[in-house]
């Protein structure tokens, strides 16, 4: 057992760390958020150039054949700067669905361009009634000769405003909550019949509500076999879960360290607030929550590297629970210890707090994963 990074992984870590430290200060991030698209296209081109967009894809598809560990290294560093560029929607979710479920033609059509930074994607898989159940679908794809006609509503689709292509989950057969009959389709985001209501999220990302109205796609839009899409979707969402957990660990590191630093300079009643024992204990709790989360993250990465099996899934569920609980503790105490300043948009801490809050609601919250853990652990 060895939970340390190897030399190659350390190189990636150094390269991403250099980026977040040199090119992604809080003020630089503000500029990215203020762009019309909500992120910096220049940064995106740089991610492509540095090969980061290629990490999870196979060499055959133009990728680097990276494992979960290489991805983790990127997201943990991204978390330290709350990077807003749509890496998760495009590379992990939409790109992941094609990587795992696409035919060689579909992979050829989308992945090299994605890796070059020329394509943005989004995964439309949430429905208002479905909550965190991936199979709970009212969106339908009805066969019509050689093609399919998609009708339905998708909620909170991250990066949809910038997306060139969408991957959509839709029911090709069965009832709303059946696990069979779920299919994935990849289609042009501008296709006729697709309408969007775009909005900003509380953590400064862009998303859309999407209506599909008689959207007709050819059979070449189907990812994998009709009705067999749930397995791919589950794995993609687990990879997304793992990615946001790695990001949350990076966020927590900054939250707890910035709070400790602040407590060393902030004075009240003529004393540094860090000298108050009541606050010292809370900051030690923040530190422990962060360390344990990081350990769980690395352990989960090691399991995922071996393969996406039931043990790895159990670890992902456990990790999400750990991150949810730790994120709340670290985030809330960081705000509390910063006092009034901790309530303002001006302070970077609040933005990290908002990000860990949003992460708790993504891909199943702690309660969802606690139940899933119970089912997997037997």
């Amino acid at each position: 057992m060895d939970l340390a990074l190897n030399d190659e992984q350390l190189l990636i870590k150094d390269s991403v760390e250099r980026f977040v430290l040199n090119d992604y200060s809080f003020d630089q991030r503000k500029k990215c958020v203020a762009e019309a698209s909500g992120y910096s296209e220049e940064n995106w081109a740089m991610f492509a150039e540095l090969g980061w967009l290629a990490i999870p894809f196979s060499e055959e598809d133009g990728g680097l054949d990276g494992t979960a560990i290489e991805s983790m290294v990127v997201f943990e560093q991204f978390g330290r700067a709350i990077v807003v560029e749509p890496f998760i929607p495009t590379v992990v979710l939409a790109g992941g669905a094609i990587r795992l479920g696409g035919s060689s033609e579909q992979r050829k059509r989308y992945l090299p361009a994605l890796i070059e930074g020329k394509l943005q994607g989004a995964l439309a898989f949430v429905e208002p009634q479905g909550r965190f159940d991936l199979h709970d679908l009212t969106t339908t794809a009805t066969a019509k000769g050689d093609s399919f006609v998609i009708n339905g509503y998708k909620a909170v689709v991250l990066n949809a405003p910038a997306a060139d292509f969408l991957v959509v989950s839709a029911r090709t057969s069965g009832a709303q909550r059946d696990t069979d009959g779920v299919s994935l389709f990849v289609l042009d985001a501008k296709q006729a019949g697709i309408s969007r209501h775009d909005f900003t999220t509380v953590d400064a990302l862009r998303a859309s509500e999407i209506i599909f109205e008689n959207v007709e796609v050819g059979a070449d839009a189907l990812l994998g076999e009709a009705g067999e899409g749930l397995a791919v979707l589950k794995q993609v969402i687990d990879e997304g879960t793992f990615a946001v957990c790695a990001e949350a660990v990076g966020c927590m590191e900054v939250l707890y360290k910035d709070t400790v630093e602040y407590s060393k300079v902030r004075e009240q009643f003529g004393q540094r607030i860090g000298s108050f024992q009541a606050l010292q204990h809370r900051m030690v709790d923040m530190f422990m929550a962060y360390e344990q989360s990081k350990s769980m993250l690395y352990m989960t990465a090691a399991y995922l590297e071996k393969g996406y099996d039931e043990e790895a899934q159990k670890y992902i569920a456990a990790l999400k629970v750990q991150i949810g609980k730790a994120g709340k503790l670290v985030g809330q105490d960081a705000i509390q210890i910063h006092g009034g300043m901790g309530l303002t948009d001006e302070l970077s801490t609040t933005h990290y707090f908002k990000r860990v809050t949003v992460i708790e609601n993504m891909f199943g919250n702690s309660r969802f994963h606690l139940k899933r853990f119970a089912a997997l652990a037997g």
Partner: protein
Amino acid sequence: MDITFTEEDLAFQQEVRSFLDEAWPEKMRLKYRRTVLDRTNKEDQMGWQQRLAAKGWAAVNWPVEHGGAGFTDTQKYFFDLEMTKAGAPRMLPFGMTMVAHVLMKFGTEEQKQKYLPDILNSRAWWCQGYSEPGSGSDLASLRTKAEDGGDHYVVNGVKTWNTLGQHADMIFCLVRTSQEARRQMGISFLLIDMKSPGITVEPIITMDQPKPGFQEINTIYFEDVQVPKENLVGEEGKGWTYAKYLLEFERGNAHSPGLYETLNQVEGMARETQSGAGALFDDSDFRDRFNELKIQTMAMEATEMRILGSLSAGQNVGPESSLLKTRGSEIGQAISELAGEVAGYYGLPLDQSVPLDDDDFVPVGPTHFNGVSQKYFNLRKTSIYAGSNEIQRNIMAKLVLGLE
């Protein structure tokens, strides 16, 4: 001890309901319920307060001789409860429950006559100038100076964490009129016209990202602001005593009606939210956690009745107010956290809607989730302001438990 309500009490409750049905109509309820956020629209707020004043119900905590509503404790409870249920805006506390009490106790006859009727009838909007950049819970560290200019003071300094001062006509401030060995000495309580030359109001953008103009807090700059000496309350240098007197009113509010109302909202959301094959509210784990918060709220209500109910009119809550403030804020934060959990993905959209007839913001998802995360962010303030909960625990340790 008696927990039954009399027929008169119940008749009063009905009277409040009927009044609210007419005075706070469906149209206004919808306007204010578009979101769970409390955004203040000056015109509606003042109009509503004036409506309450016309009914004689504006000054719930005032002595009757000054125009107080003359409610019994039970009537206050029902009034609070029905107001909260109807989603009617709360009376802004700065005039009515803060400066007014200081004026009644320490003001001159002229000051009472000049200011109290306008406060009672909501003709003037007041705000508070206590905190300063860096002062935090250590209020006595304040540095805003008021220097003698003959018949007036010359005020220079900065006040921050000021609530809704962008709408205010008047501000009551703590200012330093002399440097003394003890920091609590040399502080005076001054009333300042917000239209005075030299005052600048600058918004503070909080993490819940209100729409511009609808910010909750501000920083106020005073540059050579001339304030007539007749605007000094009580004696020069005694401001700290008056401020402490006022703080107890700030901390002595009943939290439980508002907590019950937010629990009701969460229950409504959870009943309409599907989880698995059923409703989230029927999920036993969720229901247990919801009920734990409900029971904490019941304990809060019982404590409020025991503490607040034991006071005679005009009497202040003592250090027990720290208990109410600490637990009230913590339960409120926990409920907002649970609301965020119910919302799931619909906790993500940013809500910048405001209560205006022509508000053009288009909310995302079911209305009852609008602003849910922002409310959770916003309520972090409640364990920080008015003396952080750490300070409240210090107060209880020292003054209630006798620990030094």
